[in-house]
């Protein structure tokens, strides 16, 4: 078969990704600079409106806070789990639970949260604290807490392989050379895990930054986060040019995620050189 014949074999794949991935990408990129069929910077300029900038700001703060807190808690949990028997039930139980929560979160987590903390919620009734309150539905209180329910599990899942990649020989070599346990963590294990940790932190950031379902299910008033703003351009009665602004916001979101994911890929490559041999 000639090479041109061989190329026929990949036509379906490229046709599919053109229609369902590349065209949507172009729609977003081009749409961000078009309004009413004419090129414009108006959509991009609209990103400067207070509603959008505050949504972007909230999204970033929410993502940073839940990524940092989730990463720290998840890392501690990952280390604790790594000291258990390698194929024991405890480890399987915790990783399975985290797999479900990290992946399946979305709407169900919002419900779980309501069942716990709302005015009719279990904990509210148990503690007798009156009225649930509106804090549940605010992006910097309730949402932050509920986001941790998928951030911590995600951290466990992406960070556990790194912790398990620490070889016992490194600790033993440190000891035979005269180092204490504290020194091992400071000079050996810490620096080795750092790239993995930062990489996982970045992944958590993009995870929170692009999450839509939980927030959509929980927040019914206004659109405090960027994904909700974008979603809003679909559901609200379309103001003229609103579509274009939605595309500009989507583009901004992709840019942020792409930058962070690139940094993640670089760090992860470094980490896998050290840990997977």
């Amino acid at each position, binding site marked *: 078969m000639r090479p041109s014949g061989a190329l026929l074999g990949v036509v379906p794949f490229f046709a599919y990704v053109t229609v369902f991935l590349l065209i949507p*990408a172009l729609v977003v990129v081009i749409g961000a600079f078009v309004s009413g069929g004419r090129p414009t910077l108006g959509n991009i300029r609209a990103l400067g409106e207070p509603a959008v900038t505050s949504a972007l700001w909230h999204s970033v703060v929410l993502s940073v806070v839940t990524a940092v807190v989730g990463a720290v808690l998840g890392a501690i949990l990952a280390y604790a789990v790594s000291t258990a028997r390698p194929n024991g039930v405890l480890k399987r139980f915790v990783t399975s639970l985290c797999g479900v929560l990290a992946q399946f979160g979305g709407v169900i987590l919002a419900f779980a949260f309501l069942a716990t903390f709302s005015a009719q919620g279990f904990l509210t009734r148990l503690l007798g604290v009156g009225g649930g309150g509106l804090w549940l539905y605010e992006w910097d209180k309730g949402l932050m807490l509920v986001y941790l329910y998928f951030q911590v599990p995600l951290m466990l899942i992406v960070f556990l392989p790194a912790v398990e990649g620490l070889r016992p020989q490194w600790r033993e070599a440190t000891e035979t050379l005269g180092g204490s346990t504290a020194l091992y963590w400071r000079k050996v294990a810490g620096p080795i895990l750092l790239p993995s940790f930062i990489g996982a932190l970045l992944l958590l950031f993009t995870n929170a930054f692009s999450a839509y379902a939980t927030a959509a299910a929980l927040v019914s008033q206004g659109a405090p986060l960027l994904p909700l703003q*974008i979603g809003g351009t679909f559901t609200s009665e379309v103001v003229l040019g609103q579509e274009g602004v939605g595309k500009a916001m989507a583009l901004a979101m992709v840019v942020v995620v792409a930058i962070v994911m690139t940094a993640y890929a670089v760090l992860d490559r470094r980490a896998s050189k050290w840990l997977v041999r």
Partner: protein
Amino acid sequence: MRRRQDLFRWVVVTLTLVFFGLPLFSMLEFTTRDSAGHRTAATWSALADFGVISTRYPDLRAGFLASVGLAVLTVVVMLVLLVPTMTWVRLRLPGLGRTVEFICLLPLTVPAIVLVVGLTPVYAWVTYFLGGNAIWLSFAYVVLVLPYAYRSLDAGLRAIDVRTLSEAARSLGASWTTVMLKVILPNLRTAVLSASFLAVALTLGEFTIASLFSRTNLQVAMYLIGKSDAQISIAVGLASLVFAFVILFAMSFVGGARSATSPLARLRRNRKELT
């Protein structure tokens, strides 16, 4: 040393389980309570009866059936699209390998909400040609699944040395079709299974795209019913969480250590240097 580690582990794991277990327990408590505050199994017995569900909550029935159909179609399209292409690229067009990988990983940088924005005109055409059935969301779900499925299959293909196997089969007189069906596919079984599992998990948990395109799948149905009858939708949510957990937990025993904990774990573990 050892004992201190054990103590640390148990403290951390216990706190974690309380943290994660509390909302799950609250869901159970909430769904077994009647208006007077007494225990009742009414919600769960309603849920166990598909007839009652169908008549009383048609959305739930529709969403459930749509999600099952979506899962099946997504897996099929994903496999038909990826397995032959990836194998073919390895065998005949190794120069395209990096391009295919790049394209497959691209969706990682595209949040679902952004995909919705870009897909709007595409789905206008899909609806025009195929109608508005929720099942056509599969085309978008395949894109979401692409990175994870690619990693799974890539790991499988790495492990079997496609080139040598196919050269061996060709030297014994096999046609390309025979090579694919009788040599490559059977050896990819585990990878295909794990890619399919990831696709099913992602499909069943998807909310964003379905919701914004106003199609009803399981998650959307739960959301909609939650507005009128919180108990039944919370019960469905808890049931699906437990179901997913049981499947994952069982699979952790079958497929070796943490083979299917999460698409993201798969993504990370299989990352290797391309040479």
